[in-house]
């Protein structure tokens, strides 16, 4: 028993030590990655939009139906101003120019939640 508990403490020590070690390595990696790629100006949003265009070109002939759907959905969404709202999730890149936009959207969602919670 005592020996087993000792083993347990040993595992705990080595285990948590290694977890922190790996995580700190990841920290360094992430900081390095962000530093190395910070020069690249293109944000995700822009490249995403561009890539979507390309993808749609490539799949133009295979996936006509799919494309049609996307196009229709997009058209409607634009018309109704829904895209703005729908994309305001945890992806931060859309709002990276102004903090206010993010806060505004977040508050709007918060209000909405309260309304629904009230209904419940």
């Amino acid at each position, binding site marked *: 028993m005592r020996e087993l508990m000792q083993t347990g403490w040993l595992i705990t020590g080595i*285990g*948590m030590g290694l977890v922190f*070690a790996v*995580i700190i390595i990841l920290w360094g990696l992430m900081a390095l990655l962000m530093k190395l*790629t910070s020069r690249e100006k293109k944000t995700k949003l822009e490249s995403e939009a561009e890539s979507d265009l390309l*993808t749609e070109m490539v799949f133009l002939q295979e996936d006509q139906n799919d494309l049609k759907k996307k196009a229709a959905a997009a058209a409607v969404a634009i018309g109704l101003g829904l895209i703005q709202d729908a994309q305001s999730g945890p992806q931060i890149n859309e709002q990276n120019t102004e903090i206010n936009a993010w806060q505004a959207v977040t508050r709007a969602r918060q209000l909405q939640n309260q309304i629904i919670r009230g209904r419940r």
Partner: protein
Amino acid sequence: MDFTYLINELTKGFTSFTWGSAFMIAVGLVLIALAVFKEYEPVLLLPIGFGCVMANLGMSADTGFMKVIYDAGIKTEIFPLLIFVGVGAMIDFSPLLSQPSMVLLGAAGQFGIYGTLLLALWLGFPLNQAASIGVIGAIDGPTAIFVGSKLAPEILAPIAVAAYSYMSLIPIIQPPIMKLLTTRKERLIRMEYSPRPVSRLTLVIFPIFVTVIVSLIAPDAAPLIAALMLGNLLRESLVVDRLNKAAQNEIINITTLFLGLAIGATMTAQSFLNLETLKILALGLAAFVIDTVAGLLFGKLMAVVTRNKVNPLIGACGISAFPMAGRLSAKMAQDEDFENFILMHAMGANTAGQLGSVIAGGLLLALVSGLV
């Protein structure tokens, strides 16, 4: 014509039914009710509950078609890995990448694993079972099932049930601890959010590098991290929309259904109704509490070190339980101050917790396989 056999055949449903079966069916019904009427993790608790009902009506994972599903998905480790491919495709690591120091919280939220392991050893569980129970503290279903099914498959059912049930109870378990351990002043700390733009290149390189590094240091975590990061690469590459959608929909939905059923189908009265199960359920709760406490204390430490630039509440997201824990922390901060939005920081810490859980689970597997 053998009438005795005929009568046995026609009444076998009742003769093999015991009080234990009835009790376990009731347990299954409770899980289903929690799923349906409380909406506690319904996509998992409903299949687990129904699987439990089936198991105690003669359709357990030991026999017939449920055994086929169990053997195909759990024994081969395929189900938790497929779920991770889907989860990876749903995770956005950019909040974490734009604030790399948040990743530390993902390490702090793993103390519950070892704390629970020690408690389990102290209660007399053998090392392999104690480690499996400890991994409930990863607070991540696929990790718990992956590690548990390798170290102690005989107690996989209570481990999985504890992992998913308490995860669904996070909004009930965490808030009192959060209020107890933080002052109102701390909870009011606003965090600056001026994210650096995260380039597509970074988002593509990140999952690959994490796979390589974690696989080298913690090779037992390699399948889990590789599955998670494969899903994330499908998402961030932006060029394989078909595969990305398949991962986020078909693959994860079908797997979740059968994983839940298969886990539930191991909950027969014979295997589940005993004192050990109760102990495991209690230890599982302890794991959640220890994790949350450790995360919050580390959050407070970060608040001190950064001179109140970090709201300690986000420490509670380092436990994993993605994405519920992240949202809960943000909500707690807003409950104090309606204009305090820390969601992005919380999601950063939360995805860090996801990484930390996988790494800790893999290391635990290596350590215990090395010592048993």
